[in-house]
């Protein structure tokens, strides 16, 4: 058994942490998330130069063939620094979905540009009615000779706003909630027939509702087998879920450290708040939650290569752990700061917002509790 990072992994962690300290101070983040797309193109190019966009991809496309542990490390740091960017949507989620399920030709056309930072991807899989069920796909793709015609609605696709290529799930046979009959398509944007409503979310990120009206794609845009897209999508969602669990654990550690530092210096009634036993116990619970969340994120990460049932159990267990402990830690961070904890100018409330968004993403605690029991 070994829970040590390799030298190389430590290097990655330190380089991200330095980047966040130098380039992503909290007031800079506030400015960046206030308008536009919520992140900086310049930063994205720096991500490319630092090799972070290449991490999980195969060498043949310009990637670094890194393991899920490296993704965990980067997401943990992003969580600590409250980084808002299309990294999750492009590199972790859609990128790895394509890398795993796409043809060599599709990967060759798309991934090199992704790695250089010139192409952004996003997944549009959830639908307004589907709520939490993955098979709740009523968007349809009808075959018409050499093309597919896609019609339907997708909801709150993360960073679809700036994506050059979307991966869209659509039903090619069967009816809503059949596990079989869902296929995945590459859809470039803008394309005739696609309209989007963009939203800002409370965590400073962006998500779009998408309507597809007679959108045509050629048959070579089908990813993997016809009718059999769900297993690949399920896997990619687990990869993304493990990544946000790692992000949450990083965010929780930051809340713990900042709250600890605050209680050590803030004085009321002639003593530091940190000397009050009632508050010490609260912070001990926060600390324990951080340790548990970190373990849960690692558990999920290490199971990404396991057989599907074991993978699903580990990922769902992590998501439930993160949901419960992340919520408490986020709320405690605000509460123990008192009035300043409620303000825009302090990071603490922004951690609560991001932890809350993570809980709502990729299935909430209740969904994963059931999935855990029935993987």
């Amino acid at each position, binding site marked *: 058994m070994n829970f040590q990072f390799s030298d190389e992994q430590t290097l990655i962690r330190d380089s991200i942490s330095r980047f966040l300290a130098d380039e992503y101070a909290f007031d800079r983040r506030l400015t960046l998330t206030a308008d536009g797309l919520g992140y900086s193109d310049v930063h994205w190019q720096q991500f490319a130069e630092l090799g972070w966009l290449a991490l999980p991809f195969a060498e043949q496309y310009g990637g670094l063939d890194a393991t899920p542990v490296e993704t965990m490390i980067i997401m943990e740091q992003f969580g600590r620094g409250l980084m808002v960017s299309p990294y999750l949507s492009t590199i972790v989620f859609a990128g790895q979905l394509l890398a795993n399920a796409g043809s060599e030709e599709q990967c060759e056309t798309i991934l090199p540009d992704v790695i250089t930072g010139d192409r952004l991807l996003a997944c549009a899989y959830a639908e307004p009615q589907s*709520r*939490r069920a993955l098979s709740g796909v009523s968007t349809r793709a009808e075959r018409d000779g050499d093309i597919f015609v896609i019609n339907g609605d997708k909801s709150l696709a993360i960073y679809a706003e700036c994506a050059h290529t979307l991966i869209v799930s659509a039903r090619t046979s069967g009816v809503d909630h059949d596990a079989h009959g869902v296929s995945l398509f590459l859809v470039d944007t803008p394309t005739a027939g696609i309209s989007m409503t963009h939203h*800002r979310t409370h965590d400073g990120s962006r998500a779009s509702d998408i309507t597809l009206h007679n959108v045509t794609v050629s048959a070579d845009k089908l990813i993997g087998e016809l009718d059999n897209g769900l297993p690949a999508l399920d896997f990619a969602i687990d990869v993304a879920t493990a990544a946000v669990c790692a992000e949450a654990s990083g965010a929780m550690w930051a809340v713990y450290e900042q709250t600890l530092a605050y209680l050590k210096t803030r004085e009321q*009634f002639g003593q530091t708040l940190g000397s009050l036993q009632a*508050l010490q116990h609260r912070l001990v619970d926060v600390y324990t939650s951080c340790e548990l969340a970190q373990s849960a994120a690692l558990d999920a990460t290490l199971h990404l290569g396991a057989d599907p049932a074991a993978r699903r159990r580990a990922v769902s267990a992590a998501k439930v752990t993160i949901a419960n402990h992340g919520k408490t830690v986020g709320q405690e961070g605000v509460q123990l700061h*008192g009035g300043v904890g*409620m303000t825009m100018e302090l990071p603490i409330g922004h951690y*609560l917002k991001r932890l809350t968004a993570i809980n*709502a*993403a990729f299935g909430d605690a209740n969904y994963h509790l059931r999935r855990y029991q029935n993987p």
Partner: protein
Amino acid sequence: MYSVPAASLLRFARRDIGLAAMNKSWSPEIEAFRREVRDFIRTHLPDDIRCQVAEERMDLPREDLIRWHKILHEQGGWGCPGWPVEHGGPGWNFEQQYVFERELALNDAPRLMIYGVGMLGPTLMEFGSDEQKRRFLPPILRGDVYWCQGFSEPNAGSDLAALKCRADRDGDDYIVNGSKIWTSDAHHADWIFGLYRTASDGKKQHGITFLLIDLDSPGITLRPLLMFEGTHEVNQVFFDNVRVPVTHRVGEEHRGWTYAKYLLGLERFGTAEISRSMASLGRLKTLVAEIAADAGGAYYRDAAANVEIELRALELTERRLLFGPGGPDAMGPEASMLKVRGTELQQCILELTMEAMGPAGQIDRPRDAQPGSNRTQLEQAGRNYFNYRKTSIYSGSNEIQKNIIAKAVLGL
């Protein structure tokens, strides 16, 4: 008057709708009064204002609060339900006041203009000079002057008596220097009442003076402080050589702590917001009723039922304390328990509302969108959840309330 023999508690528990059963136990006069109030609110509350309250907003525009206050005022001083007739209030007994505020909450009417109506007004009636009562009470009654509360300072929050903002005597004036922070609604307000340091020898509770200050006075500046979800409710108020006539001092110099304790005691009854939570819970139940079983419907319905059960117990607890043998005056530090549990349940309801909406609960929609038109109360679900985290911090944080309970109720 409601009292609680064990048998009636049992009967209460067996009813499907315990709250209706509770209402039936008001005397016929109070019940008639309740209906009169409810009908009045339902027919007179402007819809655009009601929609904002139903959206769980606490940051209503000044004009809307004043508009509603004036509607209540026209009805016979209803804007100041706790005020006696001699000062233009309706002169209601405590049951009437309780029922009135409950109906306001259940029917999504705005909260009262608490700083003037609920805090300063009664404090002036108790400790103000005749001249102060003549000058300051009528504008509060009519809703012409908007007050805010300047107690907290950057280094005096839970430890309020550590406040440092100075008021130095200079002839017939005080000269005020320093700052107040977290001042709710200072950007809407015309005047600020607050506590200022006039002496710093001896106990820190000594040497505090209660002053009334016109926010238009030269030397006052405001710094808006946005909440982390973007709402502007609180401010920092800076005083730079601000002259305040001695006639604007309430009571005696150095003895402001006594008046402040009286004033804060008045706040105790409202902060649990149990009836407001009933209204919010109703909205949550409507939302979760529509969630399909395979989309977590059962989970959310169970969770909502759980909060409802907790809320019932808390409401009955509040009534036991308020309408027990000694009446409301007998309620002491137990009120702290209502505040702690009340805010916890309120936060829980808004949390569940956001969670039940799934990812859509995370959308950040601007506050200034036209209220009422074309939007549902759920559009602000995420913001409401974040915004209401404040309720366990202000009005005496829940930790401080627990310290009070431990000391004054448990005797530890």
